[in-house]
């Protein structure tokens, strides 16, 4: 079930009413039922996968609790890791690996024994990366002694089937979620009001901005070989904002929905467009994933305690892994690896150059003439540069689907996109691109992007719902009305294309 569907509009109030009205001992049952209904709605098969993950990690956790030696616990942890990553690999990466082996063997004129049709039509369970990582964090935490193993299968099932975060995160930790699930939750007007406002803010970002930006981004990639530098630059920025609004909008809805039923979920985005550097960016963007990778991979590899060379390798490796997590395709892996390389360069610069020159006057001058907003601009540009690759695989699939019989490789698209990036002296396909949906749509888009960033600049690191709810009644109602009207009147809830059925 999608958050921006009519189905969810019906599901949500019914779920909340049931959950908040049943006695405490039955609340977990509503959570589990709601979770399986929510997830099984995509496909009943997905619900089976969820059940398998739940059983695997519940068993692993319980067995680890029984074992006294770390050595024995490790075996159960291994079972959990193999189970989760096995599911993830089977559904998400098997086709990717198969294709790469095939391509590699073709270079040596060897025929791969596995027929091509075996893996290429497998349906990837929605949000399987989020599900497995969330569940995996539980068993690792139990192994490390951070969390106690859950003895009640029902509560544990509520944790894995906690629908607000199930499909698109944030990737929650058991130590935060499980204790809250066990508490009694009752109707609380202020919490519900606050949660609903946060959900509304999320829908605004998703339906009004992200989905409107999608027209322009899709079109830019479709015309990858005709566009000028201006279109690439603006399209890249639009894509960056689109991903942010789409993803953070979804997180806002998840946070808001959880809040309505009395559960606080971790923040996933904190104004990433105001980041001062690449490292700062990762503390603001998809926080639940970056902290997951930091806690369970980067620290495992030695974090910053290792040698300088090792740290550089670790940073690049973790970012490449992050790319692989985002999508089983090379452009995605490459885009994150490049970010990793930039971060590694920054690390080297900070530890080897800045440390030495910091006390000097020249550094103070540099600091003076290179203020925060310039750091922010450079950070955004670096991410924009890498994010152009992020979307190349999807573009390749669309382009090849639209032109059967011809094959365009992702490298061709990437080469053209990056080749165009610096052609700022031409305006090929710039005006047409801006006006693709008409001048009104473009102006509306710019106005709403401006409103979004202005709001983020004003609220700072505070939660938007807390700021709004602290205002007086008239201001509050004015904000509610403007938000609702913006969503209803300017939201994109359609394919906006009219197909004459006579064709």
């Amino acid at each position, binding site marked *: 079930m999608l958050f921006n569907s*009519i189905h969810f509009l019906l599901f949500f109030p019914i779920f909340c009413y049931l959950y908040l009205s049943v006695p405490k001992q039955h609340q977990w049952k509503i959570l589990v039922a709601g979770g399986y209904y929510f997830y099984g709605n995509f496909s009943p098969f997905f619900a089976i996968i969820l059940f398998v993950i739940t059983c695997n990690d519940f068993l692993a956790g319980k067995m680890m609790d029984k074992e006294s030696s770390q050595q024995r616990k490790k075996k159960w942890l291994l079972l959990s890791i193999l189970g989760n990553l096995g599911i993830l690999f089977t559904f998400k990466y098997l086709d990717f690996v198969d294709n790469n082996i095939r391509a590699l063997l073709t270079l040596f004129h060897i025929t791969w024994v596995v027929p091509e049709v075996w893996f290429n039509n497998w349906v990837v369970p929605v949000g399987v990366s989020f599900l497995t990582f969330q569940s995996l964090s539980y068993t690792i935490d139990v192994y490390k002694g951070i969390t106690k193993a859950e003895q009640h299968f029902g509560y544990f099932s509520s944790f894995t089937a906690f629908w607000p975060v199930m499909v698109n995160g944030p990737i929650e930790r058991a130590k935060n979620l499980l204790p809250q699930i066990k508490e009694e939750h009752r*109707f609380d*007007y202020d919490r*519900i*009001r606050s949660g609903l406002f946060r959900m509304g803010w999320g829908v605004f970002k998703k*339906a009004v901005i992200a989905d409107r930006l999608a027209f322009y981004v899709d079109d830019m990639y479709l015309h990858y070989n005709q566009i000028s530098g201006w279109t690439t630059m603006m399209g890249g920025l639009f894509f960056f904002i689109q991903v942010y609004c789409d993803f953070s909008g979804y997180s806002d809805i998840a946070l808001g929905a959880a809040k309505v039923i009395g559960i606080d979920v971790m923040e996933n985005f904190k104004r990433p467009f105001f980041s001062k550097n690449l490292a700062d960016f990762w503390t603001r963007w998809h926080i639940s994933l970056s902290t997951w990778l930091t806690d369970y991979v980067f620290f495992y590899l030695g974090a910053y305690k290792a040698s300088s060379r090792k740290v550089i390798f670790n940073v690049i490796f973790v970012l490449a892994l992050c790319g692989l997590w985002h999508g089983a395709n090379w452009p995605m892996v490459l885009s994150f690896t490049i970010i990793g390389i930039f971060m590694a360069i920054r690390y080297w610069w900070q530890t080897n150059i800045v440390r030495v020159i910091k006390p000097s006057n020249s550094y103070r001058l540099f600091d003076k003439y290179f203020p925060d907003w310039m750091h922010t601009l450079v950070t955004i540009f670096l991410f924009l540069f890498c994010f152009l690759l992020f979307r190349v695989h999807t573009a390749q699939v669309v382009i090849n689907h639209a032109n059967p019989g011809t094959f365009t490789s992702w490298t061709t698209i990437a080469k053209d996109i990056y080749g165009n990036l610096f052609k700022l002296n031409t305006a090929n396909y710039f005006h047409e691109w801006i006006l*693709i949906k*008409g001048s*009104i*749509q473009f102006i*509306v888009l710019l106005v709403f992007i401006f409103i979004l960033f202005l709001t983020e600049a004003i609220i700072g690191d505070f939660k938007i719902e807390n700021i709004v709810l602290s205002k007086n009644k008239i201001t509050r109602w004015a904000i*509610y*009305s403007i938000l*609702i*009207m913006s969503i*209803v*009147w*300017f*939201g*994109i*809830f*359609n*394919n*906006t*294309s*009219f*197909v*004459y*059925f*006579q*064709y």
Partner: protein
Amino acid sequence: MKKLIKNILLLSSILLLISLIFKFFLPFYWGDTTQATKFEYYKKNSSKFNAVYLGGSLEYRHLDPAIIDSIAKKNGIDLHSYNMGIDGHGIIQQMTDLEGLLKIENPNLKYVFLSVSSDPYFYPLNMHTTKWIAWQDVSSTYRAVKTIATLNDPIRNKAKFSYYYGLSWIENIFKIGAMPDVINYEITKNNTNTDFYLGKDKNGFYPYDEEMNNLMAEYKWQDTMLVESKRVYEREKDKRDSLTASVVKAFENYKSTDIANTAMVNLLMDAYKKCIKRGIQVYFMLPPRARTDYSLLLPVFYAMPVNSQIAFADPRKYPKYYDVNYGYNFHHLNHKGAVILSNDFGNQFSNLIISTRDSI
């Protein structure tokens, strides 16, 4: 809980009230540039015309008022007709179009032509588009749901489409996702750069062959679809033949005792009576190449008053309309075909007028 529900209702009421304001200054055709162009032109020039063709693309792309008027003139009939057919308009939307047409002051209006070429179903991909939601109101939804209920289809299908109509109406009430198009309409309504939709004679006839040379549909990829539909039509002989065969079969199987769908008949007869009351004569057209099954359309068409029927859909009588040389795509004629059809139409209409005159 009560407070929350009260506040949600209050907020919805504020939104509803503000949204309803738009109803007072937006015409029902604001969501469709083609229709807005055609209606606005007619509004400004209504006194020039005494006959209007309503319907979908089967009228818009096929009926050339210039040819029909000239044939009528040769037969001593004073006819100045205007083609108000709009792509995608089915039987329900045609009723809204008629109501809109009758609201426009035109003391000269003598004839209205209604199309019998579709059922109330529509292509679900069109849901949520401004073009689809802009015209929906309480009466159109009521008409649609009532008509769908009487169709001989699985209940699931009927429930689905009734829900779609209801949802589209709600979307129009609240103007869901439609504000940029409202603004766009208000800003551009007096522009004349969409006048090409009126055709070169400014009488509302615009065949697909001409549009192909002037591709600038509201949504870019429709242009591609238009061109592609021609290619597919020319390429796929088997599909062409099977479509024609199914039309032939429907005509062969038709018996005058076949029971017509009452809701569709009532809908068209209501329109008929409404026009007669105003002294406007109504004619019903049964065009060729309709997408809807002719076994549903034929009993409805023949349930209309006998002296108001204009039919040219039977492939046995009019084989040219199903000939590939006169077709643009599976459901439309090309300009050449439209010329022949307009000639036939003019003759049939003139004969009807003459025979009615003689009988008096």
